[in-house]
């Protein structure tokens, strides 16, 4: 635990930590610096992953393989998946916002293990650079982000081994982060702050971190065995040496299905923070929200084989995993209905943060509906490994998590920088992203149902038009990042000053200056027992008189 040093002593001793802009490039142990390091680093990798996606959509604009060599195409799709999952979504929804917000939410001055926290971040840039440079030096891995053997054993070994090393480093980073979040949430809470008074994002991060700690080591072990098969010619997964390729799939998905929840649960938490502030209402059903997060964590660990319905799996296993998977829709549905009830009857400000959050709800509902369908074995057998699945999981991780990342940037940017973003550019960004996203991935449902498998560089010419529509959508998505980038850079320099609490929010990160001082608060941390105490009781409702600022300033 970090001990607060009185300011007069602090100024007398030489600082061990750099200050000013240089700290963002240093081994800083300040959770806010680390959070922003995760965010900006993740966004840089998002641009790389997006460029790779652009290459894929360019190749698929025509039905023949004419834009790049076929093995390069497989490298590109492998890198796209790996970069987007391990270098963008997981680090940003967990590492970036988790590090920035969790210490505020529990009333602490930093994370439980600040140095471990910095180590966890600094594993990411080398891992990412290693992964990307492997493309230029030796050729990257080309067996997809799933790296199924025997394909991953028979494709060029160097790229595959570098891929394994990179994912191991990123998995290690993720485990360090998970341990840190669990310790911080359970052990560093300000005296007097009860678990059931925590903002919902804390619960989401607690659940996510439990998943990280339980499942990521399984992936690490599996990849170590896979690397033995490649380098030392062992036979764990090599059928030629008596190994079993389906065992790899079980082990891989034991991590990689929970990984979906590692990517969306924090997003659920962030949305639960954003909606009440901009709808000026309490979060609806706090207790059921907490239970549904924990139910998703529990169920998320026992559904992995739904990725393997066409592999060698016995009928009873298919039946069990169908039912377990479909039941995840129940706690997830509770969360969505609670969000709808949160905005029902509110005073909704339709700003960029709110619009991106609502875009998330629309996209994720569609992704959830196709997810319940995919859980049904007979349905899945036709569409497994097709563009239907590609559309489904992009609706979950892009339409879900990435929309929430943008909503969160618009919501917390005033806190990060002390300045407001330009609202018009934000809405333009939201509109372009929403249209481009749905144009890109909506038609892919049809492609999958009608016979286009995933991970192909060439396809049946009857699918040309739909693929071109999809590529236009991808182009729109690429264009949509331009107003965002301009907005973020320009507003940091000359945006209007935000003040401490531009949204009149009640959660603790807003009860300090923007940007906050090094140890978060001057003086004691505030005790926030009602993080969602917005709104007026129904019997006192006076439509014109009370304002959010009034309520906030009387300490409601």
């Amino acid at each position, binding site marked *: 635990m970090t001990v607060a040093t009185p300011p007069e002593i602090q100024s007398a001793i030489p600082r061990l930590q750099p200050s000013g802009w240089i700290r963002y490039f240093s081994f800083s142990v300040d959770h806010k610096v680390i959070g922003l390091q995760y965010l900006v680093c993740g966004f840089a990798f998002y641009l790389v992953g997006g460029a790779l996606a652009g290459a894929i959509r360019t190749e698929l604009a025509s039905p023949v393989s004419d834009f790049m060599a076929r093995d390069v195409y497989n490298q590109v799709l492998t890198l796209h998946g790996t970069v987007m999952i391990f270098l963008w979504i997981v680090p940003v929804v967990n590492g970036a916002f988790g590090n920035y917000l969790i210490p505020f939410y529990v009333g602490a001055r930093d994370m439980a293990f600040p140095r471990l926290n910095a180590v966890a971040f600094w594993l990411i840039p080398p891992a990412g650079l290693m992964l990307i440079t492997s493309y230029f030096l030796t050729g990257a891995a080309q067996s997809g982000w799933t790296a199924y053997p*025997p394909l991953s054993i028979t494709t060029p070994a160097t790229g595959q081994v570098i891929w394994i090393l990179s994912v191991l480093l990123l998995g290690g980073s993720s485990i360090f982060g998970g341990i840190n979040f669990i310790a911080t949430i359970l052990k560093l809470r300000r005296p007097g702050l009860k678990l059931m008074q925590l903002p919902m994002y804390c619960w989401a991060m607690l659940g996510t971190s439990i998943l990280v700690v339980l499942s990521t080591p399984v992936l690490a072990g599996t990849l170590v065995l896979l690397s033995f098969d490649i380098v030392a010619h062992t036979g764990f997964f090599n059928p030629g040496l008596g190994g079993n390729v389906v065992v790899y799939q079980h082990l891989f998905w034991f991590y990689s299905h929970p990984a979906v929840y590692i990517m969306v649960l924090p997003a659920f938490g962030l949305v639960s923070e954003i909606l009440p502030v901009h709808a000026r209402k309490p979060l609806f059903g706090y207790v059921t929200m907490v239970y549904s997060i924990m139910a998703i964590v529990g169920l998320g660990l026992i559904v992995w084989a739904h990725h393997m319905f066409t592999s*060698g799996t016995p009928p009873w296993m298919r039946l069990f995993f169908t039912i377990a998977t479909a039941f995840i829709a129940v706690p997830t549905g509770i969360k969505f209905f609670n969000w709808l009830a949160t*905005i029902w009857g509110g*005073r909704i400000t339709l700003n960029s943060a709110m619009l991106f959050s*609502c875009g998330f709800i629309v996209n994720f509902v569609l992704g959830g509906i196709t997810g319940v369908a995919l859980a049904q074995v007979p349905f899945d057998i036709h569409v497994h490994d097709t563009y239907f699945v590609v559309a489904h999981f992009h609706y979950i991780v892009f339409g879900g998590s990435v929309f929430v990342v943008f909503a969160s940037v618009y919501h917390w940017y005033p806190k990060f920088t002390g300045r407001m973003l330009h609202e018009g550019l934000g809405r333009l960004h939201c509109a372009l992203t929403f249209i481009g996203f749905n144009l890109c991935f909506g038609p892919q449902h049809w492609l999958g149902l009608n016979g286009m*498998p995933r991970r192909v560089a060439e396809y049946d010419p009857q699918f040309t038009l739909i693929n071109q529509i999809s590529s236009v959508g991808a182009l729109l998505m690429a264009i949509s990042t331009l107003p965002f980038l301009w907005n973020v850079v320009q507003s940091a320099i000359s945006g209007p000053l935000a003040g401490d609490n531009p949204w009149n929010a009640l959660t603790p990160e807003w009860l300090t200056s923007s940007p906050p001082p090094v140890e978060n608060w001057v003086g004691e941390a505030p005790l926030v027992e009602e993080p969602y105490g917005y709104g007026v009781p129904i019997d006192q409702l006076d439509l014109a008189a009370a304002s959010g600022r009034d309520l906030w300033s009387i300490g409601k």
Partner: protein
Amino acid sequence: MEQWDALHSLTRDWASSMQIPSAIVTLILGMILVLSGLWIGQSINLLPVGASANAPIYDELFQVLFTIGAILFIGIVGLLIFSLIRFRRRNDQLGDGIAIEGNLPLEIFWTAVPAVVILFVGLYSYDIYDRMGGMVPLGHEGMAHHAMADSSEERIWGGLSSKAVDGDAFALPVEVTAMQFAFLFHYPEGDITAGELHVPANRPVTLRMEAKDVIHAFWVPEFRIKQDVIPGQPTQLSFTATRPGSYPIVCAELCGPYHGGMRSTVVVEEPEVWEAWFNSNAKSDGSTTT
């Protein structure tokens, strides 16, 4: 519930022109929603033509899932858009919304309803899967009377194989070998090896599949069937084609650079036409089990 009623009366006041009680409005909206979902499920067809006995069963399931999905999606998105418009902050409004922190009956309602829907969908799809023959256990007993069970220790995992087909002497056995980047079909009865799969209509076909190098997947979109072809672990898949014509066989599991080009064709022919094809290609005397 008082809070909720008060909220309802509040919304009613805001919609000053509408004097219809909100319960009736909700009921009518719900009926319109369900009817439009049913209409969408009935009239929009997203699937390719069905050419196997499996396909109509699959399409039935798809229609049910599509209808339920459409109702949920339109309902939730409609509610969201309505809320955003109705409850948006007007310029003259400074106050907060209403402090409603929860509503237990409502929360129980929207936990129970999805749970029931999920249970229904799960049982229904189990029934569909059973009708497709997916619940037949394969392995030792399943393979015991099979003509091609050359090694009884071998454990064979299956995909769809309808009960009528399994161990049926009437079924046409075909051995499928998948390799980078082609499918090879071998008819043990006539010792025919072909790059295209020729099958007679309305006769069960049992594929015994093995991969030479990496994992492939055998997919015929028009048959609604798919099964991974796994090295070191033979798999089995049965189907009955019903509609003569040529349909693509697609490899659905990433298998290397030419994965997208790993395609073949299944030709479904009238039994007489198929018999002629079989006899002209058979190496041995060529009599079929029919």
